[in-house]
């Protein structure tokens, strides 16, 4: 049983349900490795992908997950939307729902917007990133990738490196990883880490070398200049020197360090090419796990309950 109508975020999301999503995702990953990668689980289900913000990999990943599950999908992006013609968010959402759809996958620049959407429509809502708030499907695929690599999540040392302030990926990962029993340290420029982040149960360390030494895996975030407004990161070369996961830093470490990145990568800034392309990096595994994770979430939300015990 999966008792959630929507999938909006991982804050206060029960640990056993996170585990169930991950376990189900591994079953779908087996499907993705078959010659015929499609199952009929969501036949007859209609899903709208509502993207008010540019996205390449998340949108494709969701669309692919939906197609693998045999759902009917419609894509809607801001550039073609009626929002440009002055229609309100609420009217847009209700007009789309009036066409009898079952679920909406939404990305929107405003924090809280997916929660907001659930107040206007009866369809199920999956948050594909709401501004700087949460990106829960990304956190699920990150945790799935960690479990795949280590066989567990509990008690691992996981570092999240970069702009924590503006990162929905960081927030969802923190909620999820803490819930799953991992030790989490955030690392990045002090002016991009909220002073009170430790209230979420994470440690703060501005010293990248110490963090790399401590961690079993590092999740490296992209520096998002477009979200900063004023110039908080002085230059790419300074960022690389202070926080870059460089080949020099990785070579200094004796043990293997698992390298993760949600993409898109700024090579030579937050991560060196040699590191991103190394055997320690599971960045491309994360991408495939993203499709499996999203299949799992959509299936658990939309699949018929009587099927949920024998799917594989």
């Amino acid at each position: 049983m999966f008792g959630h109508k929507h999938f909006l975020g991982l804050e206060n999301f029960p640990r056993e349900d996170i585990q169930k999503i991950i376990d189900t995702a591994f079953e779908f990953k087996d499907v993705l490795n078959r010659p015929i990668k499609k199952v009929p689980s969501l036949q007859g289900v209609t899903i709208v992908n509502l993207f008010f913000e540019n996205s390449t990999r998340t949108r494709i990943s969701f669309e692919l997950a939906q197609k693998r599950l045999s759902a009917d999908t419609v894509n809607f992006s801001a550039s073609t939307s009626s929002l440009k013609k002055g229609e309100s968010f609420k009217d847009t959402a209700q007009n789309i729902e009036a066409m009898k759809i079952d679920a909406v996958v939404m990305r929107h620049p405003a924090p809280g917007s997916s929660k907001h959407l659930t107040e206007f429509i009866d369809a199920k809502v999956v948050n594909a990133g709401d501004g700087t708030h949460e990106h829960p499907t990304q956190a699920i695929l990150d945790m799935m990738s960690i479990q795949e690599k280590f066989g567990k999540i509990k008690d691992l040392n996981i570092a999240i490196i970069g702009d924590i302030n503006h990162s929905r990926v960081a927030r969802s990962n923190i909620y999820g990883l803490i819930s799953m029993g991992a030790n989490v340290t955030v690392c990045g420029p002090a002016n991009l880490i909220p002073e009170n982040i430790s209230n979420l149960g994470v440690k703060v360390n501005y010293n990248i070398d110490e963090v790399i030494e401590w961690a079993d895996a590092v999740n490296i975030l992209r520096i998002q200049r477009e979200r900063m407004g004023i110039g908080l990161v002085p230059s790419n070369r300074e960022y690389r020197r202070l926080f870059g996961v460089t080949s020099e830093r990785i070579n200094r470490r004796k043990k293997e360090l698992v390298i993760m990145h949600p993409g898109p990568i700024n090579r030579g800034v937050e991560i060196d090419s040699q590191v991103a392309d190394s055997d320690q990096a599971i960045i491309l595994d994360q991408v495939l796990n993203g499709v499996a994770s999203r299949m799992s979430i959509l299936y658990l939300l939309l699949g018929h309950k009587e099927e949920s015990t024998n799917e594989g």
Partner: protein
Amino acid sequence: MKVNKLDSKVLLKNATIIDPLKESQSKADILLVEGKIAEIGKIQELDVIKTVDCSGLILTHGFCDLHVHFRDPGNGDKETLESGSMSALAGGFTRVCTMPNTQPTVDNPESINYIIEKSKPLPVHIHPIGSVTKGQQGVELSEMGLMHQAGAVAFSDDGLPIQNGLVMRKALEYSKMFGVPIINHAEDECLRADGLMNEGKVSTRLGLVGNPSIAESIMVFRDLKLAELTGAKLHIPHVSTAESVKYINEMKNAYDKITAEVTPHHLFYNDKHLENYNTNLKVAPPIRDSLSREALIKGIKNGTIDCIATDHAPHTVHEKETTFDLASCGLIGLESCFGVVKRILADEEGVSLIDIIKLLTISPRKIMGFDNNLLEIGKEAELVILDDEERWNFQEKNIESKSKNSPFINQDLSGRVKYTISNGQIATSS
């Protein structure tokens, strides 16, 4: 002033040694070997090449000034690192921090390296301060991390106050990673407007546009609160108003990473001295009224103010020999510093000599994290030898700076630097 390389063995004989760190005073000799302290005590002259007779003189830590302008790179007509270091030696300073408002701005590690490399052979230890924002524009943060790694000891936009509170907050947060202070010239540009001197009775009489003291204190208050919020180190330069002293005093009770400096000229003068439109007294922040001056002195006595800094700001003759409104802001202060401070604080206000020495030595060194334990065997000799009782009239010929814009010319000063020893060299005053 003569500057010579130290002989391999130099005996400083019969000195009264004041150690501001250990708070001790004793009569002793000091033997320097190859520029380092080899022995302290009663020393028999053996194969000493040179003896300096220090009878009746005070020997103490070389002075440290964390606020000077050496105009290098870019304005060699006003000052250079070389001429600035001569000016410092004449004033007893062995260590200074240079402000980044040069041409171009010191806002990158390459400029920090330039100053450090060019300073290496000089007798005075020169530490560059990097800018907080690129080009001191108050918008984008400079490469503080790379500058810190290259040797920057603090960050400041100097004469261009950071107006945007968010930029100031983010700069303080960023600087926290390096543990060095942000120094913000505190002045609200809108309130200052076109103010030329302190706003008050004198400005009204003289017909000069006033710069109100609240333009400073309101910004000091903002910076103090932002420092407390962010947990960063804040150093407040050239405090000039009574309200600023009050706010600093109050914040120091709540938050301990706050330090403040005051200049000799704000201690010496008040705005009545501007009656003859002396452009050498045009300075930012302006010379305030006598009540503010008294508050600064009180702030020194009760520890609200941590140290003296000169804000040595050389300008050419043509920048000062003009009408008051057009004249550049700033004055030089290294050569006259000790004589001014000793006269005001000791002779007129009864502050002890050792407390004055602390304001010029261990306090500024502590703010910048420099070594403070100088009177130790094996340490490089970084010393000043003073006649604390000499009364003298400060003259233009006593100035080693390339610029002569001192308001202290022809003033009677009390206490004089006789020798300064630093980086293997000894300066002898003439």
